[in-house]
């Protein structure tokens, strides 16, 4: 029997999240390269037609692990269910998207099985028999190729955006869907989660802004935000920020861009003193043009910038405001 790659997809109310499709794409690519068999598992209490949807893709089989105890999500129930299933299936590789939910239970699952998870990977390499997973380290300044030094099952989580979800291959004939029974004793679930909610309505909707000037910790002090505001004003755009700026209360939370803030895709995103951590980048990489000003020539933000200025933002921004005003005044 060939080895199995198992992709555990993440769903909410019968709908897959986008990064689960990305992980399926990764699974398909890995299966093609290794000759291993790709299978998928759907987990929840009412997964609806989801298994069918996944079965229409190029996978050998789809398992449905359904239990009322999996809703709402708790790490105890998820680990109990997946540990039983994975122990009986013994896949070589278990792939999941690196979502907030997965990072909540995967380390527990791997530990419970005396294994390890290589987390938040952005790609993989096959070197001979060796499978290397690529992940960012030092906040994206460096990348590492990491290998497993233990027996399978090997757990891997993939970062949001690492693969193309729209590239997942379909198959004309649907893969078989199999229901799996798992036992989750009631008394093992210790956490009692309440409803998911959103904080008070956002006052500004940055998704509509065409031009965004965003500041990061490079702005140093609250009072310096003024010059970024002046630049935003001169350009006719909105001011936004990285998380630490909002955490410090220098700008309101609804101006935060990134995985825990807003996701924007303006015509122009001007990043001032932002390092370009992945959690920030996922919120703005869809911008049509990205300009970054950073004094560190190796800042990861430059990897996605169209125009880059290596320098002190306090030297660049004041003359830039003047230049913008000049050009605008002339036209």
């Amino acid at each position: 029997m060939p080895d199995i790659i198992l992709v555990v997809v993440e769903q909410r109310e019968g709908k897959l999240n986008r990064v689960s499709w990305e992980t399926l794409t990764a699974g398909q690519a890995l299966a093609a390269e290794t000759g291993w068999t790709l299978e998928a598992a759907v987990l929840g209490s009412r997964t609806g037609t989801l298994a069918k949807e996944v079965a229409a893709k190029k996978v050998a089989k789809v398992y449905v692990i359904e239990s009322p105890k999996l809703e709402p999500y708790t790490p105890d129930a998820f680990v109990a269910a997946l540990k039983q299933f994975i122990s009986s299936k013994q896949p070589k590789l278990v792939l999941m998207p690196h979502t907030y939910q997965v990072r909540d239970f995967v380390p527990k699952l791997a530990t419970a099985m005396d294994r390890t998870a290589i987390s938040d990977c952005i790609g993989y390499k096959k070197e001979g028999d060796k499978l290397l997973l690529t992940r960012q380290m030092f906040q994206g300044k460096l990348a590492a190729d990491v290998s497993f030094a233990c027996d399978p099952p090997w757990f891997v989580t993939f970062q949001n955006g690492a693969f193309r979800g729209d590239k997942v291959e379909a198959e004309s004939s649907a893969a078989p869907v199999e229901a799996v029974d798992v036992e989750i004793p009631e008394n093992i679930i210790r956490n009692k989660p309440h409803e998911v909610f959103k904080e008070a309505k956002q006052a500004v909707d940055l998704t509509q802004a065409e031009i965004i000037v965003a500041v990061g910790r490079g702005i140093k002090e609250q009072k310096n935000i003024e010059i970024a505001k002046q630049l935003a004003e001169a350009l006719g755009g909105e001011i936004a920020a990285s998380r630490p700026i909002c955490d410090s209360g220098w700008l309101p939370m609804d101006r935060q861009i990134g995985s825990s803030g807003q996701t924007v895709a303006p015509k122009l995103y001007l990043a001032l003193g932002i390092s370009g951590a992945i959690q920030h980048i996922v919120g703005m990489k869809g911008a049509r043009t990205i300009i970054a000003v950073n004094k560190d020539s190796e800042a990861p933000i430059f990897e996605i910038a169209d125009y880059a200025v290596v320098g002190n933002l306090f030297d660049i921004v004041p003359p830039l405001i003047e230049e913008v005003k000049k050009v605008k005044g002339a036209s």
Partner: protein
Amino acid sequence: MCGRFPTPVVVLYTSLSTLTRQDARSLLLKILVCMKQVPQKDAPLKLNETGAWIREDVSYEVNEPDAYALEEALRQKEKHSGEVVVITAGPAHAQQVLREALAKGADRAIHLEDASFVRLDAINTARAFAAAIKGEKFDLIFTGLQSDDYGYAQTGVVLAELLGWPHATIIMQIEKSDSGIRVKRELEAGYFQFVEMPLPALLTIQSGINKLRYATLIGIKQAKNKPLRKVTFPELQSAIGSNMQKIERLYVPQKTKNTEFLEGPPGEVAKKLAEKLRNEVRVL
């Protein structure tokens, strides 16, 4: 020490009357905070000869969410009284993190002192912590939600599993309740969720949960007399296994985008930028 707790922690999983449990728990909170020293955010990093790690002659600082975890522990102690203990695993210079924590108000510190501790994977770091705190009865353990160097986002959750404790991740608020704690988890895209859980529990703390305090002069003075226990690598070696994942090589990531670097004195760069904004980006 344990005399302050009429109910030993292990009993919590049995069906002991909630009343006894409450009495014991509402009095004091004993909190452990895991704090890591990481290279400073702006520090230029260079690879060492092995090509699998960085050169260690950089400046260091405390891992950001860990600073928030400490602050939260201090605030909880101020509310409920009890004890705040800080722990780090790293070489001699990592002691700085503990010294700062003691100056801010932590009661005592544990230093797993050896450069080898830094090269452990998440499970072995957690094993080392679990072994080092054996015999202590904490109600809560806080870690940061992830480290700036490895970025595993795992050590806390793994430690909870090793201890057999419940956990919750990416925490933005903590309140003590009658039966345990009520925490606010951050979820993706601006969503949140409250979760109730029993004690003892492990929480991974998100940056921004509170406002950090500064150490005071008196605090810095007092810190000198606070207990700092050192634990060596050999003492814990039997608890640690070999790493289950291995960094084969470390490198500067390849650029995928065609980035145009604008150079020159600031005034000139500003001119070039304005020109791009008008002619290429077409927003002026």
